[in-house]
């Protein structure tokens, strides 16, 4: 049997296709402005990569900020649950997850696969991917280079502003004063790591600590967080897909509890026409099933 998990983030959409034992394929693409229209396109790419057709998938679970608008998903599950499942499957010893996304940052405390505590910032761009995107752009650096550049610094600059807008100004001011770019970038990483740490410590950090999301791919940020935590951090090989992986695993569990007749019935209800949802939020059309 085959299962799929789709995690629609504000910035990036991730899809993982599994069988009962392992990951078969995964796809990571930018969500774009109209995620309702992109989801089925990205799924088509994931299927092509795995060599499947849509009908081969026995159960599909959607998660992430865009999960309600996936007309081909068989059910929706919250991100926290999916991240927890995904990470626990990859590394059962993880007790604290720091998920650094494009527009938010979360702390998830896990014990024996169950959620113990949770904290999130989705109000302020500081501590999220957005901050780094903006600073990289203003300094003329590619986003994927910002981490490695920060590691070159021997003397991180003091960045006193946590607000992205003012930090951007401060960074440019430092640059005009002749401060080396790696020191500025390192200062930015330090400030953001402090901000993230300040939030996460409220859920009492315990080892093993995992970092997921786009922020986990930033070596500079991970190093700074490790320094603040005074603990080693574990980063999964593909930190962006833990949510989609968890969704696929949950899809497998849900399917196992349904007989094959009912499964076919569920499959037939899937809609692959994204145009159905174009233009307005059709909240009355979508059914939201409860998560574990």
């Amino acid at each position: 049997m085959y299962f799929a998990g789709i995690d629609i983030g504000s910035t990036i959409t991730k899809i993982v296709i599994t069988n009962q034992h392992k990951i078969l394929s995964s796809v990571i693409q930018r969500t774009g402005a109209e995620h309702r229209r992109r989801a089925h396109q990205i799924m088509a790419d994931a299927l092509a990569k795995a060599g499947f057709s849509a009908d081969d998938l026995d159960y599909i679970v959607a998660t992430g900020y865009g999960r309600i608008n996936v007309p081909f998903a068989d059910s929706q599950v919250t991100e926290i649950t999916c991240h927890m499942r995904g990470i626990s499957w990859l590394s059962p010893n993880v007790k604290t997850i720091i998920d650094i996304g494009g527009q938010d940052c979360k702390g998830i405390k896990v014990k024996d696969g169950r959620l113990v505590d949770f904290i999130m910032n989705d109000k302020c761009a500081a501590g999220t991917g957005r901050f780094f995107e903006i600073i990289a752009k203003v300094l003329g650096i590619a986003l994927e280079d910002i981490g490695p550049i920060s590691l070159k610094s021997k003397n991180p600059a003091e960045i006193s502003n946590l607000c992205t807008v003012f930090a951007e100004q401060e960074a440019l001011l430092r640059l005009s004063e002749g401060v080396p770019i790696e020191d500025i970038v390192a200062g930015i990483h330090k400030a953001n790591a402090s901000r993230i740490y300040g939030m996460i410590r409220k859920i009492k950090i315990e080892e093993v600590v995992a970092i997921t999301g786009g922020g986990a791919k930033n070596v500079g940020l991970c190093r700074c967080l490790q320094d603040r935590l005074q603990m080693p951090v574990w980063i999964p090989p593909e930190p962006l897909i833990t949510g989609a992986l968890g969704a696929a695993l949950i899809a497998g569990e849900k399917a196992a509890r349904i007989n094959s007749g009912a499964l076919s019935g569920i499959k037939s209800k899937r809609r692959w026409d994204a145009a159905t949802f174009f233009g307005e939020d059709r909240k009355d059309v979508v059914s939201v099933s409860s998560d574990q």
Partner: protein
Amino acid sequence: MFVAGLDIGSAFSRAVIMHNGNLVSTALRPTEGNFRKAIHDVLSEVLAGAGINPSEIDVMGACGLGAVFIDQPIPKIADLSCLSRGTHFLLPDIRNIIEVGNQYSRVIKINDRGKVADSLVSDKCAAGSGRILQIIANVLGVGIDELGPLSLQATRPAKFTSSCAVFLETEAISRVAEGIPVPDIVAGLHHTLTTKIVAMTSRLQISGDCAMTGGGAMDQGLVRMMEKELGFTLQVPEQFMVAGAIGAALIAAERGT
């Protein structure tokens, strides 16, 4: 006695000359990232306006984040005290001030002599200060001075869910793409900023006799929206832009004698 006051801020630099308790000359310039030049230029301008030489100044006081760049050994006075004293000079009957500056917003209670009784300041967050107005003006491709008139034309202010300038900017761009009229977008953003300020006035229990100052007071749309949400009128003194500089001059004069 000629007294000079300087207020060197991140966005604007201001200077005043007072003589026997009257305002004789004022000057205002954008700082544009160069504090030393702004200080030099604004001082020259205000002296020329008063028709006096630097040597004729008896006392000078300064405030503002850029005051550290003033070479002369003149007293550097707290912004809060200067703004309060200066606004009191301009409007002796008010007992409360709302200041919407470039980096923060502030709410102040003062006594009948213009001294600070209590105050609250917003976090250094662009969405809680006049900075958000600049950002949105850029997004909409309008001058910051057009925001006021535009907002007054709004029929249905757009709703914004974010409280962060970065996310608000993205939302504003979406609203433009959705075809929401520009006046409605501006009014929606004014509402976001107003909400943050009203939270502070509520905490200080301000219910009237209130002045509005800072760059944000230039925006008539913001002023009207705040009056609506607050439920009382706001007085914007004609010389509100130099209130801080006036306060610096008056306090320096008092300390000097």
